[in-house]
């Protein structure tokens, strides 16, 4: 693996080691913000696998996140199974939801695909509100169990989860499968003519993306102790995931995690500005989209030597 010799790997290693020592000297408040940011990072990385590599614009990342989060939450709330089992079942439910969504959605292309995924989110949102007895409706679902109450432990779980997910997703994106995905995203006809089964590869990307989205969503609600439409399903959350991935640099996987961390931390810093916070974050994101379309990581990597890029 040439990757272990690249500068990117060493920078990533240093950042991760530095991040894992944070609980020793920062407050629980900062850890709490970063914990959420790391789970968000996994959302954005999963989205990037689907868009950046498979070329599919998924407008409904929160459909996959929400199914995982709510399934885990409802099972814990109704049957009181252990959190780990609930999280696993949540992730599996998300995979099933991903397949159900992908089968019809992959028949259509471009904006139509985007709309199908968007409609899926709106349907899920309606479903949650209508079946309020089961889901808690607009008030939200209370989740009785937690994994741990220690801020440091939660932080390490989130960091570890993000690093492992990031490594798997990045590895996948650089593997032969990733190359086939990239080819089918850019020119499906030609990739198909070369003998690759495009639908199978895209379905696989969908399943992987759904698995990590659902897992991360389930972990997030167990951290929050509650699941609500506003935190894991709303279209606005999905927009944030997309903005994070584009901001960090699409087609880089790791950039998506940077973008998500930036977005959450910036939102926290701008909290004193009140209602203008979202305005400022959106304006920054728009400027990045207009002037640095490669995102943070894209801008940084274009200055590096070509072999480091690979």
């Amino acid at each position, binding site marked *: 693996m040439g990757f272990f010799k690249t500068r990117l790997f060493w920078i990533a290693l240093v950042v991760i080691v530095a991040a894992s020592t944070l609980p020793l000297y920062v407050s629980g408040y900062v850890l709490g913000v970063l914990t959420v940011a790391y789970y968000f990072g996994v959302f954005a990385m999963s989205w990037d696998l689907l868009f950046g590599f498979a070329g599919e614009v998924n407008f409904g990342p929160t459909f996959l996140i929400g199914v995982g989060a709510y399934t885990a939450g409802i099972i814990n709330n109704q049957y009181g199974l252990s959190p780990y089992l609930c999280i696993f079942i949540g992730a599996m439910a998300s995979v099933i939801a991903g397949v159900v969504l992908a089968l019809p959605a992959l028949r259509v292309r471009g904006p139509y695909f985007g709309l199908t995924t968007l409609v899926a989110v709106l349907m899920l949102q*309606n479903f949650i509100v*209508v079946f309020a007895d089961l889901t808690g409706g607009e008030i939200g679902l209370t989740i009785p169990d937690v994994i741990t109450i220690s801020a440091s432990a939660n932080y390490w779980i989130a960091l570890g989860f993000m690093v492992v997910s990031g490594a798997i997703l990045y590895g996948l994106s650089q593997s032969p499968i990733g190359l086939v995905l990239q080819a089918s995203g*850019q020119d499906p006809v030609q990739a198909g003519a070369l003998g690759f089964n495009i639908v199978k590869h895209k379905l696989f990307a969908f399943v992987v993306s759904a698995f990590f989205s659902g897992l991360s969503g389930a972990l997030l609600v167990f951290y929050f102790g509650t699941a609500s439409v506003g935190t894991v399903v709303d279209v606005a959350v999905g927009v944030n995931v997309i*903005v994070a991935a*584009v901001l960090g640099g699409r087609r880089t996987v790791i950039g998506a995690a940077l973008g998500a961390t930036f977005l959450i931390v910036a939102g926290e810093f701008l909290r004193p500005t009140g209602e203008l916070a979202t305005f400022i974050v959106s304006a920054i994101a*728009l400027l990045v*989209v207009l002037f640095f379309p490669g995102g943070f990581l894209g801008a940084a990597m274009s200055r590096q030597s070509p072999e480091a890029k690979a």
Partner: protein
Amino acid sequence: MLALQILIDGFAISALYALGATGFTLIFGVSGVLNLSHGAIMVAAAVAAWAAASTFGMNQYAGALVGVAVALITALITYFAVVQPIQRSRRIANEEKEIFVLTGTLLWGIMIQELIAYLFTNNAKTVLPIVNGVVEILGVRTPQNEIFTALVCCLVIAALWLLVNRTKMGKAVLAASMNPRGVTLLGLELTNIYVVVWAIYGVLAGIAGVLLGMFLGVSSYSVGPLTASAFSIVVLGGLGSVSGSLIAAFVVGYLETFTAYMISPAYRTIPALLLLVIVMYLRPQGLLGRR
């Protein structure tokens, strides 16, 4: 009795949806842009009309004009500041321009929405209607404002049809939607055509926004649902097909009104979403769309 009520209410809502969606589909048909700041522009128009009347004491007509003017200006800013730079950018690969335009207009829409919320709060605002009073149509009490809304929508759509099909400028727009390269070879500046289309779009979205503000009222929370409903109507009808959007607007409008009256207002949007999923599955190009 109830059937007639649904028929009348549904018509007004549908006509409003149709007006909102025509501009949206026109831009897509001509320049291939899906403008996700659509809802924000409509709300900006309504809030401007409301502010002109309530804060600056203008009469309803002047307020409505201010609203339409604000939508026109916002639409042109959207084109020049967001869409055109992305389309001209050399750093964005051509196949990715679509997602960048979507992301860019989405962010721009959120900026407008947040600015409105900051300047005028999140509260729902109702624009003072131009006509007041109620009439009875075959025993159904109908606000005159509702009739006025439906009438204006139909007139504006008819005017748009004339503009596109009967004027030289309209024919240039139509030609650009069919073959942009051919139009440039005839010596027409494509950018000028796009500016005209965005201006038409701004006026349409402005009128739709102000009427919506008079009929149902708006708040900065309406931005997302408005964009989503225009998007789904346009996809249901077939992207880029104006007549398809008109039909789809009436289908969605009546379906929603019917559900609201017969089942429950809480389920209002669900049948339309289900229909959309079914159409996407069976006929992905929409009702009247071409592949």
